[in-house]
């Protein structure tokens, strides 16, 4: 009931957003109320997450098509994603209170923001295919309108266009997928779909279509092309939601179909999904490490993290398909944990990018620098987020990667050769992605927040209002808490995976509370809690020892200039120069990275230049290829506009005869 009223409140807020007009305080009220509604939904999700697993209460509303009613249900999986979604939306909404006045056209954002929140929440509680798809489209279109908020820039318009195409494609795939799931009887409610039996062809198609449909929304390679264009184009608090949360809603759809509606996905999909995940993770982070635009970098990093989650989901499918339900539960818990974590730190980092853009007006790393001193709060929160996304202990990102590694290491115990040989390769990819993510965020944080300012605006950056800083601080605190108390999280998740795998997963089986030890205590264990305590202890001892034995005197001086007294900030390493070794090592053959250096002749005062050219192989070979084929066909079809009447008649006649033939052949069978 509470949830229903919060959702209707969101719809009402959208209306208010339209009426807000030019008065800034009205926008602020809308955002504040959005935040309250999100908190209510968050509480509802948390409350349900604590209850025993089972099918939740069903609500039937007499809306939609006349012969179909709208079914809603909140079960544990929905409740978990409701928590994930509304944690971030609450932070983004409160952030919006301060941020909306910095937007060029707040009127283009405020009405659609509550709609976007409504769409995402409605997807989660939909209990029939019709409502699911309607809400899904709601979410897509609302976010599309938000991408178009700054529609004066041509690149935003083209990003929105590509996004719209991909969203349509995704919905089409999901529509077909649900059609197959409904089976011959056409039961569009989820309970009916669970009962329907699928033959092997239909089962195969369902998985493939779900991967295409939900995967295109989540940003799986090679369907990721729209994501780094569209996510950064939206205002930052919306980017945070698109990257941090909307991709999770897509993963919710995938999990719902693969683990719940589709009874038994064969194990062979497991290695396939893992390889897709591994490639997505490595390519995503390689793109990310080369980006100069802060928000594009974060968007590519989302692609990477989706790949990491997919590795966990693929493992869970392989284990479940082979009857290893306990290990399937472990892999699924790992994947879900990473979903929770990524939604938190990605939202945090996008909000921080928004803060940087607000304070300096720049999103190019080459114009930032030294912001930690000007914006200590934002800087500290970003540092926590960067360390968490780089999977450093004791923060939350590490725990989920640790769990994924633990379940990966059990992969070769399956009797399939594809797993035995595939798992080490995927493991290497995951490890590579994790290490590159650390490099990527050392670069992003180091260039933007450390060093000396690279532009006047960065040197004069100003502190932001509390409404923008507090949500970031809250999210940073969550990164620490979820990392330091992993067992609490896995216990909550075990109730979610029970209906999906059929086993109760107790991750802290035999060592007791603070020890995270999947499978068994001798298998390998981790304790964020103990690490934090001992780490802090050793930190304190270090300080005591150093200050006890030595002096605490500090002298401020100029930095060592190596004999070049001309002290200009341009002499610092830039984002491009930081990325150069990685670019040479990983990208020269993968992306065809080429550098051209133009050195003026001695005596010529023209500046030297270094140009880097990258080719995105997926864009060039896949999308442009498809584009060319479409162009070619369109060209051919175009000629049909200039036929004579007789030929048109001929075509209609031929079509008619063909259809009749088809009917005749079908009847013969």
């Amino acid at each position, binding site marked *: 009931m509470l949830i229903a009223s919060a959702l209707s409140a969101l719809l009402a807020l959208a209306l208010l957003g339209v009426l807000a007009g030019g008065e800034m305080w009205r926008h602020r009220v809308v955002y504040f109320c959005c935040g309250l509604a999100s908190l209510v939904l968050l509480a509802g999700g948390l409350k349900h997450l604590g209850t025993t697993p089972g099918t939740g209460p069903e609500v039937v509303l007499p809306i939609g098509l006349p012969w179909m009613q709208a079914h809603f249900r909140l079960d544990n999986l929905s409740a978990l994603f409701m928590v994930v979604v509304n944690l971030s939306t609450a932070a983004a909404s409160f952030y919006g209170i301060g941020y909306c006045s910095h937007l060029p056209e707040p009127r283009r954002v405020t009405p659609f923001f509550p709609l976007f929140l409504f769409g995402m929440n409605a997807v989660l509680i939909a209990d029939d295919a019709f409502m699911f798809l309607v809400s899904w489209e709601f979410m897509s279109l609302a976010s599309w309108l938000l991408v178009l908020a700054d529609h004066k820039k041509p690149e935003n318009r083209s990003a929105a266009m590509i996004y719209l195409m991909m969203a349509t494609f995704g919905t089409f795939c999901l529509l077909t997928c649900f059609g197959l799931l409904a089976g011959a009887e056409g039961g569009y409610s989820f309970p009916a779909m669970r009962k329907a039996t699928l033959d092997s062809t239909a089962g195969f198609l369902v998985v493939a279509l779900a991967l295409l449909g939900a995967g295109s929304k989540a940003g799986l390679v090679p369907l990721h092309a729209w994501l780094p264009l569209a996510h950064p184009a939206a205002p930052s608090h919306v980017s945070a939601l698109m990257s941090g949360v909307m991709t999770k809603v897509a993963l919710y759809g995938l999990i719902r179909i693969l683990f719940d509606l589709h009874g038994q996905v064969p194990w062979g999909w497991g290695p396939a999904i893992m390889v897709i995940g591994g490639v997505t993770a490595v390519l995503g982070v390689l793109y990310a490490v080369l980006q100069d635009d802060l928000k594009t970098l974060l968007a590519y990093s989302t692609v990477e993290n989706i790949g990491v989650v997919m590795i966990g989901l693929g493992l869970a499918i392989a284990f479940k398909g082979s009857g290893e339900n306990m290990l399937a539960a472990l892999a699924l818990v790992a994947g879900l944990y990473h979903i929770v974590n990524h939604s938190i730190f990605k939202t945090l980092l996008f909000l921080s990018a928004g803060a940087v853009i607000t304070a300096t007006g720049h999103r190019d790393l080459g114009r930032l620098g030294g912001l930690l001193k000007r914006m200590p709060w934002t800087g500290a929160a970003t540092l926590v987020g960067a360390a968490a996304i780089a999977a450093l202990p004791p923060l939350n990102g590490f725990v989920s990667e640790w769990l994924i590694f633990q379940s990966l290491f059990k992969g070769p115990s399956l009797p399939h*050769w594809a797993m035995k*040989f595939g798992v080490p390769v995927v493991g290497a990819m995951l490890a590579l992605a994790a290490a590159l993510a650390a490099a990527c965020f050392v670069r992003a944080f180091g260039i933007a927040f450390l060093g000396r300012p690279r532009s006047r605006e960065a040197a004069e950056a100003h502190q932001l209002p509390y409404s923008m800083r507090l949500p970031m601080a809250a999210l940073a605190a969550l990164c620490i808490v979820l990392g330091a108390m992993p067992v609490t999280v896995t216990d909550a998740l075990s109730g979610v995976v029970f209906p999906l795998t059929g086993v109760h997963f107790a991750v802290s089986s035999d060592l007791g509370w603070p020890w995270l030890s999947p499978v068994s205590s001798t298998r390998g264990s981790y304790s964020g809690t103990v690490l934090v305590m001992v780490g802090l202890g050793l930190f304190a001892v270090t300080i005591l020892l150093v200050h006890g034995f030595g002096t605490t005197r500090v002298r401020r001086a100029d930095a060592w200039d190596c004999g070049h007294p001309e002290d200009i900030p341009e002499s610092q390493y830039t984002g491009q120069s930081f990325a150069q070794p990685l670019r040479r090592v990983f990208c*020269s*053959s993968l992306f065809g990275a080429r550098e051209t250096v133009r050195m003026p002749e001695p005596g010529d005062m023209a500046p030297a230049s270094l140009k880097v050219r990258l080719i995105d192989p997926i864009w060039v070979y896949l999308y442009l290829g498809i584009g060319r084929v479409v162009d070619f066909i369109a060209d051919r079809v175009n000629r049909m506009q200039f036929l004579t009447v007789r030929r048109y008649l001929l075509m209609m006649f031929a079509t008619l005869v063909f259809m009749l033939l088809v009917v005749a052949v079908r009847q013969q069978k």
Partner: protein
Amino acid sequence: MAISQISYELAHLIGATVLMAGFQLLYQRRLFAVLNTFAFQAVALAAAAAWQAHIQDAPHLYVTAVIALVFKAMIVPFALHWLVEKLGIQRSVETAMSIGWTMMAGVGLVALSILLVLPVTANAAALTRESLALAMSVVLLGLLMMITRRNAVSQVVGFMALENGLILAAVSAKGMPLVVEISIAFSVLVAMTLFGIFFFRIRERFDTLDLHDLETWRGDRQ
């Protein structure tokens, strides 16, 4: 059983050293380093043969070991060394594929040979399977080296490495007659001599040993 277990494990470890030397061959960028690595691989091969002679109690394998040590670890590398200096061949290895990719392809080939060996020898003991997988990987790595190197000298080394793999397989399987080994060894020597003459001829004619350059002289390209 315990003692023979350990002796088999040692045999595999030596076999793995031969394989590692095969990877080293792919990794080296200097011609002389390639030759040294090849000599090292031959020494490891000789050790493998001698160890097999010891555990199988087959004295003829000692002959194999000596042949490997003398011909492949000494004469062939020295001869190639001399040739390289004599002909003034460029000392760096020209690769047709970057070293990283070559090594990844190498790991792929090892995985492939393991996959191939496993079902074929499903009934054999794990001990034979391991040696067979090792030997086959060495053969495939030799082939890979021949494909991905442009310089004729490194191609010859690739060929010899391939042949090392064959001998490794032969010594690990029981009952391979000595005659076969000797004939292989001599065929290699003959091949070596032929290659030597061939190098001189190519060089006189075209002034290079880079096979890429030779391609332009093929009849159908003109």
